[in-house]
């Protein structure tokens, strides 16, 4: 793959990421289904890592996490950087060892990313005295509500970008 094509591909990924961040901030953040709003941030890194080389995906995840940590409030310092990198690494592993990159792989990777981010938040809440039942219930609802949005918004866009920038 040429350097020019690589630049075009990641420029497209960047543009798509900015649009999805705006959508998350201004639209998804205001939607409440079953008492939760869909959160798709960590899924960006996860879906990106299913098709791209791991080093590229990790760099993308670090940038995405830094931007998210700068813009949005989080349960821990560097919350998004840590989770995006972890999600990207796990997704890369899943895409290379478990499922061939595609829709099913994206479903699995997004679910892992959402469980990871929700799980960390739940642990923080449990540590501060929240009941385990409430935290688990919220975690499951968040994963169930966010997953379709992540697949609907991120998977088709990233797949298309990958396809049109593949020589």
């Amino acid at each position, binding site marked *: 793959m040429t350097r020019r094509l690589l630049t075009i591909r990641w420029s497209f990924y960047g543009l798509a990421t900015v649009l999805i961040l705006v959508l*998350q901030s201004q639209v998804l953040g205001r939607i409440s289904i079953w*008492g939760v*709003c869909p*959160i798709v941030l960590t899924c960006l890194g996860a879906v990106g890592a299913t098709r791209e080389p791991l080093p590229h995906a990790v760099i993308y995840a670090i940038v995405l996490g830094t931007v998210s940590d700068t813009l949005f*409030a989080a349960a821990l310092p560097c919350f998004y950087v840590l989770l995006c990198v972890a999600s990207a690494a796990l997704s890369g592993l899943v895409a290379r060892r478990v499922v061939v990159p595609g829709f099913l792989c994206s479903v699995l990777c997004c679910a892992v990313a959402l469980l990871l981010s929700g799980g960390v*938040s739940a642990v923080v809440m449990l540590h501060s005295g929240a*009941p385990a039942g409430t935290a688990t219930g919220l975690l499951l*609802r968040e994963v169930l509500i966010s997953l379709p949005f992540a697949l609907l918004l991120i998977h088709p866009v990233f797949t298309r970008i990958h396809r049109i920038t593949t020589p």
Partner: protein
Amino acid sequence: MKRFFSKNGLLLLSAAATVVVILCVISAISSGTPFLRNVAGVIASPFRAAGSAVAGWAADVDAHFDSVETLQEENDELRRYVAELEEELRRARVAMEENIHLREALGLTTKNPDYTLTEAKVTERSISNWFSVLTINRGTADGVDIGQCVTDEYGNLVGIITDAGYNWSRITTLLDTDSSVGATVFRTGDVAVTQGRLELMEEGCLALCYLTDPDSLISGDQVVTSGLGGYLPEGLVIGTVREVRVDDGGVNRYAVVKAKVSPEKLVQVFVIRDFDGRE
């Protein structure tokens, strides 16, 4: 014929010229409308009328197109005018809504003249289901700083500023698990502390803890800020008591307070930058 004209052409031309000169001389010296001109006029009259009709029709057509163009221009101008009016109307509606909020806030300052308020708009809601945070469009450039409290236009407490940038700030609302505010039950005067709880956040409620006499509470009791410690102004409405519960340990009891403000519905808020007794 050709031969005739070639032989007598010059003669004929001379004769015609002579006749024309004679006619011109007669016309010049005769008074009134000369006969010849009259005859020529009569003969030309239908042609003139026809010409005039054609010219009139052409003028009408031209005028028609002119008027269509004029009408189109007028129409465009009117459309622009309507668009401008619609824009003005939209602005007026926004201004009217803002005016209502500001009037309410004026009531807040009238009741509490010691408050220094800064109006702000909510620009973002929390991107998480695990805490309740709002971002507003005012920051240190407007005198907003960490620790200041935020109310709605009716004086109901929204939360506390926990992060302040140059032109933005983050409010941790009363419902957040990190939130803890000194409170008083208005009817009984009991002093307690409100705390955000994850299990109550979804219902828009918070816990009223460290109550000396939970049995004295009745549903609907108003809970307001105590003002103790000079951290927050006194008397800002937090919510109303819904019920009394026992915590998981089965020892302590707390009251569930329904917050007066729903963070997800807030559009405009007021930061109380200063008040009498602030420390």
